[in-house]
């Protein structure tokens, strides 16, 4: 069979970064560039092999192979296996590409800046790349969970790279604990899936059936063939499991309410933020939902929760992005918001849309982080945007690539982000309009939140652009920035190009409006026709969504299909443009912009002195956005962090009482021991009828 070679060597995609990890760990100090070259070579190799696999998959083949079985126990399956289908092949390419570019960028950001501990840095990057690729390739949930945890561990290590400072150390711990909090639910969910279906495979093979398929059959047959617990019916029980697994997703993809770790994670080195906290690891949650979408598509309740969580997170995080001073903080909240869109798409029945946005976001957000990194180098590691300004002429390559990324993020046509964000919103809209009852209402509410968030996105994105690059330099450093070298510019250019044109892979609006058939390449790609993945295709998901969960797409609500497409695209583009314009009015027009969001006095001046038509916009910015953003921020700091801390405090208090029974006096121990024995005798005696 054609293309088998690509699959036969697929394990090497994972093995190369792992080898690099081991080599750098052992010998990093003696290697060229302190191990960076090994990492670059390994990730480049992975990229080539991933592309090979992608091409092969595009040719219509898929692949599943058990690699290693831990135990022969059928009841508690435990094995490693590889699964390559369009979804994982695409993700492999994204991960290895970004990893490669981040390695190159790190030469400029870490090596040229004379950091110490570089072998540790590069070995951890290698370990991360290895874990992430293995997570993507996993053919079962348990293996996925293990690598999910491992990427979490790498994230912890890399955030805490500068562990001697307070900030990174505590941020690392917070990231670890908050995501672990979600992961415990994930673990319970995994165990639940294994206990219920007897397998945790995503994909059916000759001898095993995948659990989404089993779930589908069980629901169709009223619960046969599966074990449910605690007296729940199959659908309720599946929903519970689904929600438990979702706990891990929410933690890892930084969704409300477990998103609080991500902004703190910006304490890590910027290339790490680009790789892990923007493009790949954070995507793991979304990827997981897409991976087992056949399961989630059966559960309307869970889908609704996903959609609402996503929509709310998109809006909530976008509002907070408005008030941040540090460039990386803005990007962090933007990342949370964008992952909200992906969740919104998944909850709204837009499997392809979510995947599409996952891809484009990986490109433009990695670009923005690397661009920010370039700025940070130039600014001697000062991240405060109010200390920048006027960098446009000093660093043109950074500026233009950053601009491309910003346009993509804001969703301005024809940049990549426009096409994907538009499709996300379109899918949610048509499913919302078409589905009956509460499902439709919920989707429309979520859609509305996503739509409003577009406005904020445009605003904060260009506030960042204007503050950083436009106007007059506000500090000495900004007047005379440190130059950056090719190793910083090259990744920016590559990603800039991708952020500009990546949208062409799926120009659905163009197809629908102009009637050109066959340019929705991504749709076709994610709808393969091999036997192995017949249950993992986009159209199968669409069918399941319709049959089981009652999702109906109604593309003709506003007349013809092309009208709907145009209205949807126009709405989102228009709002984005309004946001951009607002930012321009407030920050881009004057060479020395005011800190509108910080002091009200400046706002008043603006109110009277500026153009009359700005009045509405300014009110929007100061009267509505600012309090909302402040409120969200306070909620974030107080309630969410407070709740996580509260759980800890409860066990601390409990512990301090419990340990008091250990009085230190052995006679008391004897008494308690005897008391325990008497109690046990009484319990067993009464239940066993000794005294009768």
């Amino acid at each position, binding site marked *: 069979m054609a293309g088998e070679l690509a699959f036969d060597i697929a394990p090497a995609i994972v093995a190369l970064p792992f080898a690099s990890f081991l080599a750098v760990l052992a010998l990093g100090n003696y290697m060229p560039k302190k191990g960076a070259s090994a990492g670059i070579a390994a990730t480049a190799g992975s990229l080539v092999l991933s592309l090979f696999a992608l091409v092969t998959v595009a040719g219509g083949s898929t692949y599943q192979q058990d690699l290693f079985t831990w135990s022969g126990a059928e009841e508690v399956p435990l094995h490693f296996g590889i699964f390559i289908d369009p979804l994982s092949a695409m993700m492999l390419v994204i991960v290895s590409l970004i990893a490669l570019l981040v390695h190159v960028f790190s030469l400029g950001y870490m090596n040229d800046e004379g950091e110490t501990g570089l072998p540790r840095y590069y070995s951890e990057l290698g370990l991360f790349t290895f874990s992430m690729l293995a997570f993507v390739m996993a053919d079962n949930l348990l293996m996925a969970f293990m690598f999910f945890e491992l990427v979490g561990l790498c994230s912890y290590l890399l955030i805490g790279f500068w562990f001697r400072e307070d900030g990174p150390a505590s941020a690392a711990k917070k990231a670890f604990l908050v995501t672990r909090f979600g992961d415990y639910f994930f673990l319970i969910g995994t165990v639940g899936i294994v206990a219920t279906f007897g397998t945790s495979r995503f994909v059916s093979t000759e001898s095993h059936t995948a659990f989404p398929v089993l779930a589908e059959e069980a629901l169709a047959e009223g619960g046969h063939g599966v074990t449910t617990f605690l007296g729940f019916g199959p659908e309720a029980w599946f929903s519970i499991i689904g929600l438990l697994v979702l706990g891990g997703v929410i933690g890892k993809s930084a969704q409300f309410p477990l998103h609080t770790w991500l902004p703190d994670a910006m304490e890590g080195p910027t290339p790490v933020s680009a790789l892990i906290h923007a493009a790949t690891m954070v995507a793991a949650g979304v990827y997981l939902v897409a991976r087992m979408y056949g399961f989630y598509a059966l559960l309307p309740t869970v889908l609704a929760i996903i959609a609402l969580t996503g929509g709310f997170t998109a809006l909530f995080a976008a509002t907070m992005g408005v008030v941040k001073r540090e460039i990386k903080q803005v990007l962090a909240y933007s990342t949370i918001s964008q992952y909200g869109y992906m969740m919104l798409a998944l909850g709204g029945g837009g499997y392809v849309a979510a995947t599409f946005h996952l891809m484009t976001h990986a490109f433009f957000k990695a670009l923005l982080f690397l661009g920010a990194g370039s700025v940070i180098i130039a600014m001697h590691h000062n991240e405060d945007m109010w200390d920048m300004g006027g960098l446009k002429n000093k660093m043109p390559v950074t500026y233009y690539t950053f601009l491309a990324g910003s346009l993509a993020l804001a969703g301005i046509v024809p940049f990549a982000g426009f096409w994907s964000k538009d499709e996300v919103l379109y899918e949610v809209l048509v499913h919302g309009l078409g589905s009956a009852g509460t499902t439709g209402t919920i989707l429309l509410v979520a859609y509305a939140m996503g739509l409003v968030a577009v406005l904020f996105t445009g605003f904060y994105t260009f506030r960042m652009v204007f503050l950083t690059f436009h106007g007059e330099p506000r500090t000495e450093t900004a007047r005379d920035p440190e130059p950056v070298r090719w190793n910083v510019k090259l990744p920016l250019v590559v990603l800039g190009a991708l952020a500009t044109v990546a949208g062409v892979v799926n120009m659905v609006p163009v197809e629908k409006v102009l009637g050109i058939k066959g340019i929705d390449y991504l749709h076709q790609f994610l709808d393969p026709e091999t036997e192995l993945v017949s249950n993992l295709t986009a159209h199968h998901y669409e069918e399941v969504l319709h049959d089981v969960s009652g999702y109906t797409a109604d593309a003709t609500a506003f007349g013809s299909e092309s009208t709907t497409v145009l209205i949807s695209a126009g709405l989102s583009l228009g709002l984005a443009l309004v946001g951009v314009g607002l930012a321009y009015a407030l920050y881009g027009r004057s060479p020395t912009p005011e800190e509108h969001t910080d002091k009200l006095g400046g706002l008043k001046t603006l109110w009277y002195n500026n153009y009359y038509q700005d009045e509405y916009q300014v009110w929007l910015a100061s009267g509505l956005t600012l309090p909302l953003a402040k409120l969200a921020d306070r909620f974030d700091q107080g309630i969410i962090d407070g709740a996580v801390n509260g759980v800890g405090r409860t066990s601390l208090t409990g512990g301090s009482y419990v*340990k*008091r029974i*250990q*009085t*230190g*006096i*052995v*006679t008391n121990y*004897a*008494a308690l021991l*005897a008391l325990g024995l008497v109690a046990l005798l009484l319990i067993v005696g009464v239940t066993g009828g000794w005294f009768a």
Partner: protein
Amino acid sequence: MAVDTSYYLILSAAVFCTGLFGILTRRNALLFLMSVELMLNAANINLVAFSQYYGNLTGQVFALFTMALAAAEVAVGIGIILVLYRNFEDVDVAEAATMRW
């Protein structure tokens, strides 16, 4: 002529609980040790009584072993009580309470 086995049982229960009572109420380490011996010997009473009851010797032989073990236990116990006395100038078990919670 043969004593009813349940009387032996009651006797052994009484001995066992006497030993336990001693452990719970006395703080002298040596008395603690003696009380434990009482409890072990309560088990021996049972073993011998049941050996008689079933007409097999398992219980009697085991009782011999229990005694040997009790002797070994006392040897170690006395050693520990000696070092206790050297460190705390007392054989009150409540004195040694520096570690707690």
